[in-house]
């Protein structure tokens, strides 16, 4: 076992001093009453329940609505730390957009031999229906979430890119709102960059990508949700509400006179931009999945004719495919001509025989992920797995090696959470939210910090018992 023995704690240095960005917070914290803070912690939960910030867990028969636990200790980043991340994320997201345009058009990256041709042609996330299609404004990933982990003072890694339908932004916003309500005094003492303009920025960004420009700033925007039983329904409603957009289901939409229109009390009204929170497969039964009862028949024809903006564009999923992930440094270099500013986690592609041999031999040190998986399902954390689990996973790897990638178990940084016994370090990651419009990339300072609440656990996914924290970026 080569599990690292020490972790970088973002609040405390190894010799138990308080790290610079946390100085202000810690001064406040140590003078506060522990009992009051624990009480506040409880209040936060009641608050979340009352406003209904819940999610539905897949695979739970009782369809119970659950809360994502919220921890009241913020995760804090210094201005210069953030500035660095911001540059790296911008570079990465721009490269992803160029890459998507390229593989659905001239495929120059394949011609140049920078990535294997089969990686695209054999990839189920590649969407041939998108070949030659020009998304309005040239934007593919209007909304992106880049998952980052930290292992040292200056060591950040991109763990994965989320460019299909990244979720969690409503938690970023509600977490801050909750903190502002519970600890107003903190925010008067410490200058934290606000996040509340996200919905307005999202609206503006979507409007800028509308077909034929933005119609004098007033295109009709709608959020497409699978409905109230979807795990992220709260977020869909929240964003529609905050943007002043309609929240529609596929049953509300149909094609009218060559446009996508929604059924209103006064007849059908054209939609210009659809922020869709349903998967490609359910978008259009005529194009993708004839079995689908969801979706809007014919919407892809309207899209190809350039008469509606779909955010994100269909077919973007190939860019967050985990098999492709390992080529991201090459992709960034190819399209930007620059060195990647953010590192990738070293990755073994199990489809390659040598890599597979290595992975099988070192399984108890590695994290293995399904190439097309997400949400922490179907993944193996080697150091935490039992012998039986390891053996079972080895069998899976041998049967379908191309289905997996493996990465070293990263020494994820820790940030304290509040427990009854006081502050206790827990592992975290970070998902900043990125908005891409035809002429700019905007990143809300901070993002969603997910935290593994179980001591020692490295899995931060909410579906696996993770919680969230408010994330602060300090003013320069």
């Amino acid at each position: 076992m080569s599990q690292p023995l020490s972790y970088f704690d973002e609040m405390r240095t190894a010799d138990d001093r308080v790290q610079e960005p946390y100085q202000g917070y810690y001064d406040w914290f140590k003078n506060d009453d522990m009992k009051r803070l624990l009480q506040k912690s409880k209040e936060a939960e009641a608050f979340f329940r009352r406003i209904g910030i819940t999610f539905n867990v897949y695979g739970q028969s009782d369809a119970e609505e659950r809360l994502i636990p919220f921890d009241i200790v913020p995760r804090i980043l210094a201005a210069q730390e953030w500035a660095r991340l911001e540059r790296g994320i911008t570079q990465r997201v721009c490269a992803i957009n160029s890459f998507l345009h390229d593989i659905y058009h001239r495929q120059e990256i394949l011609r140049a031999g920078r990535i294997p041709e089969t990686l695209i042609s054999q990839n189920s996330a590649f969407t041939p229906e998108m070949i030659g299609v020009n998304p309005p404004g040239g934007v593919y990933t209007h909304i992106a979430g880049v998952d980052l982990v930290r292992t040292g003072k200056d060591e950040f890694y991109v763990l994965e890119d989320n460019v299909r339908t990244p979720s969690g932004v409503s938690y970023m916003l509600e977490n801050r709102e909750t903190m502002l309500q519970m600890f107003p005094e903190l925010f008067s003492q410490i200058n934290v960059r606000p996040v509340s303009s996200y919905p307005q920025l999202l609206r503006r960004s979507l409007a800028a990508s509308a077909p034929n420009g933005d119609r004098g700033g007033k295109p009709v925007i709608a959020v497409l949700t699978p409905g109230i039983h979807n795990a992220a329904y709260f977020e869909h409603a929240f964003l529609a509400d905050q943007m002043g957009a309609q929240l529609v289901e596929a049953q509300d939409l149909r094609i009218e006179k060559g446009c996508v229109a929604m059924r209103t009390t006064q007849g059908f009204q054209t939609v210009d931009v659809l922020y869709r929170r349903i998967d490609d497969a359910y978008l259009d039964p005529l194009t993708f999945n004839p079995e689908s009862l969801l979706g809007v028949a014919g919407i892809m024809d309207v899209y190809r004719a350039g008469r509606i903006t779909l955010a994100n564009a269909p077919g973007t999923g190939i860019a967050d495919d985990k098999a492709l992930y390992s080529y991201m440094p090459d992709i960034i270099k190819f399209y930007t001509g620059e060195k990647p500013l953010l590192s990738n986690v070293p990755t073994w592609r199990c489809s390659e025989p040598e890599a597979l041999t290595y992975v099988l031999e070192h399984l108890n040190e590695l994290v293995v992920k399904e190439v097309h998986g997400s949400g922490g399902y179907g993944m193996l954390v080697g150091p935490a797995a039992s012998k039986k689990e390891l053996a079972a996973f080895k069998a899976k790897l041998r049967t379908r090696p191309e289905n997996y990638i493996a990465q070293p178990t990263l020494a994820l940084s820790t940030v304290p959470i509040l427990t009854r016994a006081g502050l206790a370090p827990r592992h975290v990651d970070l998902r900043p939210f990125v908005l891409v419009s035809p002429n700019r990339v905007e990143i809300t300072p901070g993002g969603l910090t997910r935290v593994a609440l179980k001591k020692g656990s490295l899995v931060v996914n909410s579906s696996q018992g993770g919680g969230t924290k408010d994330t602060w970026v300090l003013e320069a």
Partner: protein
Amino acid sequence: MMLGRTARGLFWMFRSLERAENTARLLEAGWHMALTRSNEWESIVETAGMGADYREKHTEYTSSDVINYMLRDTDNPSSIMNTIAQARSNAREVRTALSSEVWEATNECWMAIKEKLARPVSARNLHETLSTIRYRTSVVRGALHGTMLRTDIYNFCRLGTFIERADNTARILDVKYYILLPSASFVGSSIDNAQWEVILRCVSGERAFRWLFSGEGDSREISEFLILDERMPRSLLFCISTVHKNLVQLERSYEERYPSQNRAAEMRKTFEASSIEGILQDGLHEFLRGFISQNMQLAATIETDFRFYK
């Protein structure tokens, strides 16, 4: 601009809330009667329109069976728990159309009632349970009045409330219509006050009635009070006038006149031209059946006019 589905969700959210409140009111009346004199549980179940389903599960009308069936039986689609859950689910669906106060009040209403109804309710706790229900639904209504813009959103909420309320008042009267009929046998005999009281209690109208009619009154006056009195917020005329008013406001904001408005206008006109003597003479039961069916047709026309479904 509003989605047809949103209009539908608002309409049904408020129908469900109104139904839950009415069921609570019926239970309150039944409980009060059981405490004092007569056992009214059977007619209470009948009035709630749950008779046939109730008899599938129970053979007797004991207070505990009736109370739990109407309050919290998950098999009973109209139990208070189910209607509140339905209202909350509608509210989730139309959340973007609601002020945050209305949404939170609805969500808290559901949470509070769910907790209250988690275990069987005994006759002893009934009053307190019903108070919670009444209080929680009132908060939703208060939030609606206090925080919602007077737009089409508000109109659809009100339409749901008053279509449901009209149906409810008409059914209560219909179940007990024979008591209200002027009959030779009543002449000169003392009228069954207890029976009247059931009717008035079911619509929370017992004090209002005494106040308006100085404690005296006869069956004719009670019928008039509940059918034609526009001061009484649960009377049929009040309900149909309010429905009409909201449809007129929709016409104004949509700049289009819909068939539902004509229908409501006609119903209202007929009511205003009616006298209680005429209604009783032509048959109260027939009148009420006719009204219930017209009211249902009106609801269906509203659905079509405003594209609730397609």
